[in-house]
């Protein structure tokens, strides 16, 4: 075979490639993140889901359920809805990360990465950065639609910037939950199932889409104290100016601080589990 021969001679020539002794934490994280982001934008199914899903749901809530939902304090439903909708969008948009991680774990991609001379945690940090960026992309599209369907901000610039920062923070911290689900699942389908089982109750048993006061009394304590209600209320407080007007009971500072505490807890617990799970030698 002539091709074999020519290749043999080509190879005997000394290579000019230096021997690699491994990338540092930042480079390794960014390279891992880049892979996830390219994967998203070049896989039509992922791109479609991550881009239009939020917009589709917003349209339905705004125009299909919205007419039947009354919120206290004379607030229009769309103004009530959008902060909660954006924050729960973190759940819906973050969900596909679980099956993505599970797939990388089962197809040998992670074994390859674990065999490289890089800090193993960097692979997971890269993933969380990329997932956050992708979630923010989906939320950006949703937010544009929110303004189109009538949402208006009543806040000063500083509060809006703070609101945006909180969304990024929640998205980042919660991405670790989906990564953890992906790592502990044996298959991509199982990961998707587990993520769905988590997302549906957390998104709906909350004050994100309807005021918690409208829930039956036995469900209210759950809804009022779970993190996505806290996040929703923090965003409402920041973007609507007067929290007391629609019965969320506390000051903006209260909700923001509580959000920060929840985020820190979620991040610490799940990033620890994920990194230990990824880095362990079986």
């Amino acid at each position, binding site marked *: 075979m002539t091709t074999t021969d020519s290749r043999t001679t080509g190879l005997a020539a000394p290579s000019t490639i230096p021997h690699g002794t*491994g990338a540092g934490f930042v480079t390794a994280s960014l390279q891992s993140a880049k892979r996830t982001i390219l994967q998203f934008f070049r896989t039509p199914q992922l791109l479609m889901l991550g881009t239009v899903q939020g917009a589709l749901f917003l349209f339905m809530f705004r125009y299909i359920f919205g007419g039947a939902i009354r919120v206290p304090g004379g607030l229009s439903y769309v103004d009530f809805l959008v902060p909660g909708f954006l924050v729960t969008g973190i759940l819906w948009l973050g969900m596909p990360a679980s099956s993505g991680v599970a797939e990388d774990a089962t197809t040998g991609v992670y*074994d390859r990465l674990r065999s490289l001379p890089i800090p193993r945690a960097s692979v997971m940090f890269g993933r969380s950065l990329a997932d956050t960026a992708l979630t923010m992309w989906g939320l950006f599209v949703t937010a544009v639609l929110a303004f189109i369907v009538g949402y208006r901000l009543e806040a000063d610039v500083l509060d809006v910037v703070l609101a945006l920062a909180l969304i990024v923070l929640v998205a980042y911290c919660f991405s670790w939950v989906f990564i953890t689900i992906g790592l502990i699942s044996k298959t991509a389908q199982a990961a998707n199932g587990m993520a769905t089982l988590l997302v549906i109750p957390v998104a709906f048993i909350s004050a994100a889409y309807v005021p918690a006061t409208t829930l039956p009394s036995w469900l209210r304590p759950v809804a009022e104290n779970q993190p996505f209600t806290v996040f929703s209320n923090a965003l409402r407080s920041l973007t609507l100016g007067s929290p007391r007007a629609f019965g969320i009971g506390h000051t903006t500072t209260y909700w923001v601080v509580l959000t920060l505490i929840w985020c820190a807890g979620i991040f610490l617990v799940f990033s620890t589990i994920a990194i230990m799970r990824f880095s362990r030698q079986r």
Partner: protein
Amino acid sequence: MAPIIEAEGLTKRFGDVQALDGLSITAESGHVTALLGPNGAGKTTFVSAVATLLRPDSGTIRVAGVDARTDPKRVREIIGLAGQYASIEPAMTGTENLRMVARLFGLGRSDAHRAADEVLERLDLADAGDRLVRNYSGGMRRRLDLGASLVGRPQLLLLDEPTTGLDPRGRQDLWAAIRDLVAGGTDVLLTTQYLEEADQLARHVVIVDHGRVITAGTPDELKDQAGRNVIEVRPRSAGDLPAVEETLAQIGCEAPHTDMDTQRVSARVEGGGDQLRDVVRLLDERDIEVDDVGLRRPSLDEVFLAVTGTQLDPSDTDPDPQSADADAA
């Protein structure tokens, strides 16, 4: 110089499965070492242990003298791993994939670009470098996967069933690439279920089963262990088959075997050339015309059968690459 791999007394248990059961392997630098065994023999588990992906329950592994347990990071600087799955990103181009891995190996941007180009060239993928990997054929993906472990110029390449599931052409191409690497000075440990692959590529073959080494040596030594040479005769007319069988029965040390499909009669013999000459003379005396007569060494298949008592037939195994061996890991 320390052997490139020195493993001693490795054990690893997954639940009820004893994946490694006192495995000891030494692979010297300078040639391909092949780990040959059926699914579930412990091959993937061993490779994973060398790659520091799993920790054996007991035993030691040294890679180029470095202890994998106490200094895994340095072991990772020495090895490159390519597996039975093509672990490259389908949504990136060949070039992008290689550049990414090169950056992860710690190369700077321009070195990474150069490394990617050089490896693509070497693996005959230069023309496909700008195409998304999802449009590659299976053989091209495997070659790129191999390339991804080369961009960091590892001293030791671990190839876990690199050609499983490839068509013959893809296998040939990958073999050529592996031979090139060895010629370029890279040490290779490869696992395979294909005896032919071990025979073609490796100078040191270790046969494993049930997590233990059954036997080891060069392909020739192993063939010697399996013992006798075989004389094979194919008569011109099928009608002569019984007569040929009779002739071989006089020379061979065991009853000859007639294969009706290939119209060949074969018999194991004590010795070689002298016996072949006798067979030719006898056939001549009896006026039997032959198309083919020859002496051949036992194949590695026969070696495997002789040492393990079971047939190794990869075509018979689970087509799912993630079968017993992989699960065990």
